[in-house]
């Protein structure tokens, strides 16, 4: 495992030297920032409206800052990962395969596992940066809320930050696996996007009988995402994401190994 270090460091440096990283992060925070701003406006507007009483004089119901700003902004970020992850993960294996450098790497005295783990951890480090940067949204909400006596629960904020990182970690492992499937980064990105989307919507499919629907629901990312972003950090959801990450990492290693056979 000693050799994971150099691979991790090289990939991390490559991330911060690559323009696609900045494109992915800029898009993520530009779009989510604009939407958060609208959400914030709406929240302020609705709160004011509630205080002034409803349009027909009846007292309106004030929006809950925990839901309207904290959870919704994280839900938005986690949905944006459908686009961020493919851009970040696509080059990890597919890029090296198309440039030929993978052949150099795979003939070094390192195991396929060490290579993939190093790459995965570098992607996770970028994920940690994203999660830290996204703390600006709950922070904004907190500063506003503290001024107006509706401060959000810190436990919910931290739960959401951790949940966001877990979601990133599971999606990232899927992206790495998709990247090892193909020589083409574009293909890898599309497979990642479609795969993540399907993984998310399988709970929406109305399977029959009910037992099957509930079974499928257990594997849906959407359901566990909902739980995590409700700030209710349960061991079950945590285990789900950690297991999913390991599962896709394991698949990635199998794919790399089987592709050795095809030369």
């Amino acid at each position, binding site marked *: 495992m*000693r050799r994971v270090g150099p691979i991790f460091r090289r990939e991390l440096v*490559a991330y911060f030297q690559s323009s696609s990283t900045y494109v992915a992060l800029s898009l993520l925070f530009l779009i989510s920032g604009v939407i958060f701003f609208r959400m914030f406006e709406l929240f302020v507007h609705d709160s004011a409206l509630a205080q002034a009483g409803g349009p027909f004089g009846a007292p309106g119901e004030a929006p809950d800052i925990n839901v309207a700003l904290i959870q919704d902004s994280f839900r938005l970020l986690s949905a944006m990962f459908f686009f961020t992850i493919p851009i970040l993960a696509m080059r990890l294996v597919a890029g090296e395969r198309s440039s*030929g450098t993978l052949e*150099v790497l*795979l*003939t*070094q*005295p390192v195991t396929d596992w060490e290579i993939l783990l190093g790459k995965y951890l570098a992607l996770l480090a970028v994920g940690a940066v994203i999660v830290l940067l996204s703390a600006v949204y709950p922070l904004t909400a907190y500063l506003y809320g503290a001024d107006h006596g509706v401060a959000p629960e810190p436990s919910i904020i931290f739960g959401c930050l951790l949940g966001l990182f877990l979601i990133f970690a599971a999606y990232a492992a899927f992206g790495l696996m998709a990247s090892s499937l193909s020589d083409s980064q574009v293909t890898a990105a599309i497979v990642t996007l479609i795969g993540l989307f399907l993984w998310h919507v399988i709970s929406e499919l109305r399977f029959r009988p009910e037992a099957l629907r509930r079974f499928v629901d257990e594997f849906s990312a959407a359901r566990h995402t909902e739980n995590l972003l409700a700030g209710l950090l349960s061991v079950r959801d945590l285990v789900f994401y950690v297991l999913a990450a390991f599962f896709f990492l394991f698949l990635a290693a199998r794919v790399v190994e089987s592709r050795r056979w095809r*030369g």
Partner: protein
Amino acid sequence: MALSPLSTAEPSGAVLPVPPMIEAERLTKVYGDRPAIEEVSFTVGRGEILGLLGPNGAGKTTTMRILACYTPATRGRARIAGHDVGRDSLRARRRLGYMPENAPLYDSMTVEAYLRFFAEIKGYGGRLTRRLVDRAVEECGLGEVRRRLIAELSKGFRQRVGLAQAVLGDPPVMILDEPTVGLDPRQITEVRRLIREMAGHRTVLLSTHLLQEVGLLCQQVVVMDRGRVVAAGTPDSLAPRAPSDFWIEATIEGDPARAQELLGRVAGVARVELARRDSDRLATFRLAAAAGRDCRGEVARAVVAGGFGLVRLDSAGQSLEDIFLRVISPPDGG
């Protein structure tokens, strides 16, 4: 060059059987249902340079990828310094420096960062890393580009960076796939000199489709064609193994078809090929003399007696090129 000898050197005077450093034993690799190589066997002894020679698509790269632990063989065994490339892959890889075709590199890194990365990957740390990088830089003449980005380097320097990666950590075995392809003549000369210097105590397997290169660099040659070994030996020993025809080139004035017919009847001529038509009434033929006997006298007499003009008559020497072409594709069409 001040390179320390391998620690495995035998005590002087002791007569030990020297195991081959590279062993390929009946290697077969099948993609789908199409075999890329079949029953490829050869060994390379310690300190030897062996050239894998063959046209593009002969299976050289596949053979090297198996030996370099990149792709497993469908059947057969391969060993590097006694370690099986399948069961004992990591140990084999530790004794191996491999440069794939076209020396793929990380363009966004500097030469130094690139080499440091691979030194660390190979398991060297701290001060040792710096020493190994320094040595590889020196050995491959990369001093002036050491801090440059790889993306900015010329093809010749890129090739040298690839070689430096392979030579890092002083592995006893080096496998180089087409190390001189795509270089200009000056770069080719330099890379060849580098390989010759690197060889020293190391065992080198290199592939090429240039005959001249084999003659210049290698003690041993394995000729491959369509996935099989078709000849093996020293570059000199290959010549007698080929059919020992004596070739004659004759340029004749007159109707080419009739001239060809006439030449075919000359005693001592085994076969006649039209080499080229110089004009309507002028053609050059290549004649294979039976049993390697020089029959230029008979040819000259027959041509003149037949009423043709003999413009030129030469013995066509046997270049390595001719032998190679004959070995890889039989003259009768194949």
